[in-house]
């Protein structure tokens, strides 16, 4: 049984946000939304999510920067970061992992696999914690 967890969706494309939000709510997550990098940082402080679904290309602060913000802070570095991006080059993915990302999902993605992966990540985490 999945534990209800707080998830932050960060993407500047409203259509994508809408679809992912629907999926996660249905899977039982508590969902927060940020349409830009700056908004994401505000929401992270505000809601202390345990998981962030992060787009890279955004108008103000980009996904990598948000990731740095999370992983380089003692307070937030435990937060899992999943990049969901249309960037598909190897170097983009490597960069993301080097910044401490937990997973990199390339757009367009399968909604079914997305939930599975998130759940798996949660379980793994659960195991290591216990």
């Amino acid at each position: 049984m999945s534990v209800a967890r707080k998830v932050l969706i960060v993407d500047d494309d409203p259509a994508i946000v809408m679809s992912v939000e629907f999926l996660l709510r249905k899977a039982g997550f508590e969902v927060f939304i940020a349409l830009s990098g700056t908004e994401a940082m505000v929401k992270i402080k505000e809601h202390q999510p345990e998981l962030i679904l992060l787009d890279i290309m955004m108008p103000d602060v980009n996904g990598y920067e948000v990731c740095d913000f999370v992983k380089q802070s003692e307070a937030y570095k435990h937060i899992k970061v999943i990049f969901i991006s249309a960037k598909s080059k190897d170097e983009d993915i490597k960069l993301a992992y080097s910044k401490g990302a937990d997973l990199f999902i390339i757009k367009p993605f399968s909604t079914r696999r997305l939930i599975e992966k998130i759940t798996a990540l949660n379980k793994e985490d659960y195991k290591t914690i216990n």
Partner: protein
Amino acid sequence: MNTLLVVIFSFGYLLLLFGVAYWAEKKSNQNNNTLKPYVYALSMAVYCTAWTFYGSIGRAADFGPDFLAIYIGPTIAAPLWFLILRKMIRICKAQRITSIADFISARYGKNTSLGTLATIVCVLGVIPYISLQIKAIATTFAFLVNHPQQTSLSSNISLLSNIPFWITVLLAVFIIIFGTRKVDSTERHEGMVTAVAFESIVKLVAFLVGGIFVVFFLFNGFDDIFSRAAAIPALQKSFTFDASYNYTDWLVMCILSMFAVLLLPRQFQVAVVENVDEKHLYKAIWLFPLYLLIINVFVLPIALAGQLLPISSNFEADFSILSLPFVYHHQGITLLIYLGGFSAATGMIIVETIALSTMLSNNLLIPLILKVAPFKKIFIHKVERSIKNIRRLSIILILLLAYAYFAEIAESYSLVSTGLISFAAVAQFAPAVIGGMFWSRANKNGALLGIISGFIIWFFTLIIPAIIGAGLLPKEILSEGLFGLGLLKPNQLFGLSAFTPLTHAFFWSMFINVLLYVLGSLYTKSTNQEEIQAELFINVSKYRVAYETSVNRTGQIKIKEIKSLMEQFLGQEKTKQLLTHFSRRYQLNLLQEDANADQRLITYAEKILSGVIGSASSRILIESIVKEEEISLNEVVEILKESQQFISLNKELQQKSEQLKKASDALELANMQMKEAEIIKDDFLYSITHELRTPLTSIRAFSEILYDNPEIDTLQRQQFLATMIKEIERLSRLITQVLDLEKLESGKQNIQHQEIAIKKLVEDVLHALSQLMKDKNITLSTSFPEHLPVVYGDQDLLSRVVNNLVSNAIKYCSKKDGEIKVMVLENEGFIKINITDNGEGIPDKDKNYVFNKFYQTENQTKKAEGSGLGLAICKKIVELHQGEIGVVDAEKSGTCFYFTLPVAKKL
């Protein structure tokens, strides 16, 4: 006439000559090549001496057309110069030959005795000829000053007879100044040559003026003279050869003059040594005969006039061109004629003296000095000054001899006969020179035998009678023969009595000369050195390129010794310059001065020194310091061939490698362009896939959601479906734009060029977008000039540009009080359309990139609405219309996009 006036004129003219020569020397550095061929051709007219100017008239008065022979000879021979003279020039340039004597000596193994012999022949043969020029000056001078009291030279008082002496002295000064400026006698005497060319003009003009004066002022044209002369039986002989005329004499004169025009020292000097560019010869080939023709037009009429008109009868017919205007009191013309004759004489004296002095010093005096050890020491020690001094001494010696001959003997001889004796002397070189250029078996022994025998016969048959005539030898020799031997009568050698003295001398001297030359060459063996020189002369064109490396000796000497030898002759700077050039050309290392010199360097040094002291002297000098081993012709030819091949191979290789370099450069460029294109293509593809992924993501997500969740309520379903439709539209729009751009960029887009009413076009676009603006509460303002010029272009494409820019403005203008200004302006042949919004503006650093494709993606992290292709498409369209597109900050806040279109210019 006033003595002072004539003196002033004579010396003034000489000063003018100094001026011309000085001016030419100064200007010689600037290359005025258009005049040079003419100067060359005119300098060859030094052939026309006082003999032509005065002597021809006298000759015509006595023998009619006989005088023409010596001009017809060269005229007939001129086309042959192309073959002979050109080859002589090439040989002399390659071998650095300085005179005709040097030429002969160089051809036959650089033989010293041949050079000396040729020099002696020239000096003896030509000095009387120089004297005759002095005599012409003296006679005409005396005539002007004394007439009508006395015209005879012998009765001149001492002061006046000194005037020719002082003129000779002044000429010596002139020749020393302009003839010995440079020690290298292969270097051109620009000043001297220009002065001589100038003299050629002066004598031609003077003669023509004299001729026109006589024919058209004293008579009524040619008809008048000829008809009046025809009426007098005594003068009829001038029109034809009379029955007693000896035609063989005429032929002999023709042939002699053919040789003389090439072989006389002064002719060799101007035509060969002073030649700057072999192409100048092509002009001289026709210009020189033309000059001869023009200067002879008035000879016969003047000769007739001299006999028709009552002028002082005790004055030689030679000078009637001068006496006619004088007697008729035309002082100006008389002086001009005098100057013409003066210039003909001085021109000859100057060039002949320079040529003879070069020979005398290079082929007689310097070899002598080099053979006597103590002299050689002094010579080598101060070589440049020694050479100059030797040459100056030679000049003074020659002029002194000529003056002495004039003062003592010349009196009794006419200009023409002395001239012909000179011609006959230099004709003795003809077999050795011409044979030497074409016949490889010809050798030194043949040449020596030929020239010596020819010269002896010349002396015996032409000079001895002259000496007898002067009363210096008993007359019995003429009638009884030398030593009383009948076979040795100077005018009837070996009993041959059928010819006139000239033909007789010519026949015997040339016959024996050629015979001994051929037999001597056939029956004696050539030395290696001779064979080498023969090969180099005969095949000069073949070896011209490789000439500097034509090794003709093998020997050992240290580089520093060669260097110091050259420095003594040429000075340190010139030597350094020459050696640097040489080492660069043949990639020789000359810096290790203790090493043995390369054979090519030794040969090169010898050649350079040849130009200074003549080939024979140079050879003696080099031989005396280099330990020699004999080298055979075959070896030399091998070396020559190798270096020839080496040079052409080198050239070929260089060309090839240049071509290769070009090709590889082009390839590299193409490669780079291809790589660049590939990068651009990759980036473009990546950007496109990236742009495609975003709408695809939501479309896929929503379709899966809808599929997996049939229970979703209708409202949400509708919302999801609407989003999907929007995203699909975005996708197809993107694809269309990609294709559009591809079409525009590849040139496949069909562009109309119709007349466009810009105002209407803009208004239509704005109208189509008016609803959108209303929705967003945007205030629109427009401004158009009253009359807009016609613009040609594609209506649809331009509408898209305006639409795109206005749409962007709508998208980016202030969210609250949106304002858009559309302004059309006309400016210097362009129409400019400004579209301004009041949004946040574009940062300066981005302005340059907004027109790039997928600029948002290139900038990595910034993303705005739109495909990222709109502005790129706009830019392409405007560029296709030969306009410009750009973006600037608006006056307050916001952005102003503009584009221009050329007025009334069809695409």
